[in-house]
């Protein structure tokens, strides 16, 4: 038998990225030193090497950022012609495309995701979001006929670490298109592409203060949420923090949208194209190391195809390449942080303890950095923690079902309701499942597919409000009373 074929390392060069030793806060169009005086290190999770120091925004800094956003809103942004707003957004989209390699490399360095994904998914989608919402900026009256869409003011936006730049785009593009100004806080562990985006904002000559970026841990986010000058909060992150934000905002009149956790069911019927379903399962849970709120973390397999499907899945896992996120052949990168690695490790241990059967393909984990092998749990009962709790890691729990009704019942039996997947050759079954599944997004014969024109958001503890598409404009607009226009 011939020897295997070792692919030579094919790393993307990191020379394209220039990092400062220390970053301030982006307020009023300038990177300024934090009044808090505090900084903290930001790491490369693949190597644990420090990439830079970033500022911890304190109450005064948040106040300054909100003040800058308010000033920019009052002094022009809310009243310039919508077509002008569109021009800025188109410009940002084009700059993102031009600088996409730089952003992709930095995203992989700071977040640990494979360059293949940051290059082929995160960056193209981020640019596409700006292009898409740029198109709406001067057509809001047509988007909401017989309403009077008006901007609402200053939006406070808090984003997670799993898709740092893409989530920034999801937040900033519709907010600006609708005529608002923003204060955005990137996640504690992944601030660098947001700070590089500050450079894009300057390059696009956006008026100072329209976009402000403050870095820091949860304290900075909490300050932003409770700041009186903020008219709307948009949060993407954990259900726990989302609930705290909702409590904080109750009675304040601030608008709120939450995009929280998920525990999506990926349902495979026995007539599905099996090899392609396996690809969908892999893409559903191992994409971005499973750090995806809509990840297909619960696989529901029709019992009649359980054995061949699981055999195919396990074999496919042996071909996944785990390692250097900057290597162009890497499929599975680094876990985003020590904290997240600990959480995954704890839940996986709980799964084994509860009696589920664990499978991990043989793979060498690098010594430095945060890593977790792709994992499949079989013999999982609905009551196990790994079937109930969001793991947010490369860990799949497999359950079986016998009939479509049972599949629906099990799929909906969760506190979450963000996404679901259905695999079948039968079109009528896709439609009937889509009606019965309680999830904001339902994919048929595909998974984790995103498009700026398509609304995204959840039911139940997965949050409320939609991002993307026409629906994604609503949270950033006051639609006023309906009016009847006529002669």
């Amino acid at each position, binding site marked *: *038998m*011939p*020897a*295997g*074929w*070792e*692919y*030579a*390392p*094919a790393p993307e060069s990191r020379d394209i990225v220039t990092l400062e030793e220390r970053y301030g806060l982006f307020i009023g169009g300038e990177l300024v030193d934090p009044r808090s005086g505090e900084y903290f290190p930001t790491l490369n999770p693949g190597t644990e090497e420090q990439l830079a120091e970033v500022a911890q925004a304190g109450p005064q800094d948040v106040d300054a950022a909100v003040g800058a956003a308010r000033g920019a809103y009052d002094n022009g942004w809310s009243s310039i012609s919508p077509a002008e707003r569109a021009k800025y957004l188109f410009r940002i989209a084009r700059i993102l495309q031009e600088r996409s390699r730089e952003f992709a490399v930095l995203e992989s360095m700071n977040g640990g995701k494979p360059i*293949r994904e940051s290059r*082929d998914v995160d960056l193209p989608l981020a640019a596409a979001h700006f292009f898409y919402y740029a198109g709406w900026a001067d057509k809001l009256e047509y988007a909401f006929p017989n309403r009077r869409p008006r901007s609402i003011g200053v939006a406070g936006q808090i984003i997670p670490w799993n898709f740092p730049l893409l989530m920034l785009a999801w937040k900033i593009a519709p907010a600006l298109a609708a005529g608002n100004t923003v204060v955005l806080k990137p996640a504690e562990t992944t601030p660098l592409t947001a700070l590089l985006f500050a450079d894009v904002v300057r390059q696009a000559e956006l008026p100072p203060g329209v976009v402000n970026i403050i870095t820091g841990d949860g304290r900075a986010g909490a300050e932003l949420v409770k700041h009186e000058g903020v008219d709307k909060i948009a949060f993407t992150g954990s259900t726990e923090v989302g609930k705290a934000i909702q409590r904080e905002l109750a009675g304040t009149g601030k608008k709120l949208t939450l995009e929280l956790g998920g525990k999506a069911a990926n349902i495979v019927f026995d*007539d*599905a*194209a*099996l*090899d*392609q*379903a396996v*690809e*969908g399962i892999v893409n559903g849970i191992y994409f971005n190391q499973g750090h995806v709120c809509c990840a297909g973390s619960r696989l529901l397999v029709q019992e*009649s*195809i359980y*054995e*061949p499907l699981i*055999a195919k899945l396990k074999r496919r896992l042996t*071909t996944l390449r785990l390692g250097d996120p900057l290597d*162009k*052949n890497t499929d599975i990168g680094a876990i985003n942080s020590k904290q997240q690695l600990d959480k995954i490790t704890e839940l996986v241990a709980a799964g084994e303890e509860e009696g589920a059967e664990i499978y991990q393909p043989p793979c060498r984990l690098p010594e430095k950095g945060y890593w977790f092998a792709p994992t499949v749990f079989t013999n999982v009962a609905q009551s196990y923690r790994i079937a109930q709790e969001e793991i947010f890691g490369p860990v799949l729990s497999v359950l079986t079902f016998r009939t479509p009704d049972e599949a629906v019942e099990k799929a909906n039996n969760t506190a979450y309701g963000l996404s679901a997947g259905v695999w079948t*050759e039968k079109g009528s079954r896709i439609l009937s499942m889509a009606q019965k599944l309680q999830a904001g997004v339902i994919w048929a*014969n*595909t998974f984790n597919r995103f498009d700026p024109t398509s609304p995204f958001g959840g039911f139940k503890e997965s949050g409320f409000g939609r991002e993307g598409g026409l629906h994604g404009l609503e949270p950033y607009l006051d639609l006023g009373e309906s009016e009847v226009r006529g002669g």
Partner: protein
Amino acid sequence: MAKAPALPTGFELPLEPRLPRIGSVDQVAVEERAASLARRSIKKDAKIFALDLAVRMMDLTTLEGQDTPGKIAALASKAIRPDPADTSVPSVAAICVYPNLVPAAVERVRGSSVKVASVATAFPSGQAPTHLKVAEVREVVEMGADEVDMVIDRGAFLSGRYAKVYDEIVQVKEACGEAHLKVILEVSELGTYDNVRRASLLSMAAGADFIKTSTGKLPGAATLPVTLVMLEAIRDVHDETGRKVGMKPAGGIRQSKQAVQYLVQLYETLGAEWLTPDLYRLGASTLLNDVLMQIRKEKTGRYQSPDYFTVD
């Protein structure tokens, strides 16, 4: 979905209870997977490994009305020693010719490792009576062909007469004797990936040693997704029966980069066991010189003019 025909003993379709149907292929997803595999970045030693393998797996082909013994002589020399300037470059696997040229080919490759493959069964259309096809196969084997590349009867397949297609392959296989049988599906005439999968399983069940995409006589011959569909069918047959069937994409593979993409797809679908000319061939007429040029470039760090590689 139509069921496979009743089978004579000795041959099995993957019809075990757990895979009760032929199964289907999702077009969008299979094309996406093939595109994603094609983005692997193969460099340095890994690339040299692939290029060397590509030469060893090549079926150097000439299938023209104007083929002559002289042309075959040139092709055979090239097959045996592809790069006279670099003796470390291996011979190709086989030369693939029309029946009339088999004697010339056999004569010219004698004493080398290069095999002679002959197309047969009213190639390329397959539109002839079965007994004539079988007789043709018998004859090319008698003339010394080591391998027979037959075409399936697409007319029968597309009109749902699967048993006719199946029986014909069984008879041809029998006529082959010791010669290896490659069954050409002519995928661009089959229209859907579902049909390609069905034809693949049918051919393997009927006794194919290899399944092959195309005659090379039509546009839109081998593609990465269609080859992936066939590799997945081969994998299913191996899972079910333990039998290893070979694969031959043919037609439209002209550049080294493509050859490497095909090999990556093979490696990541069927594993290291299939990385051998016994189980994988690349059917091509113009690919070889590009591969030679890339090998020279990897070894010397410089590209050389095409004039330094023989045109045969």
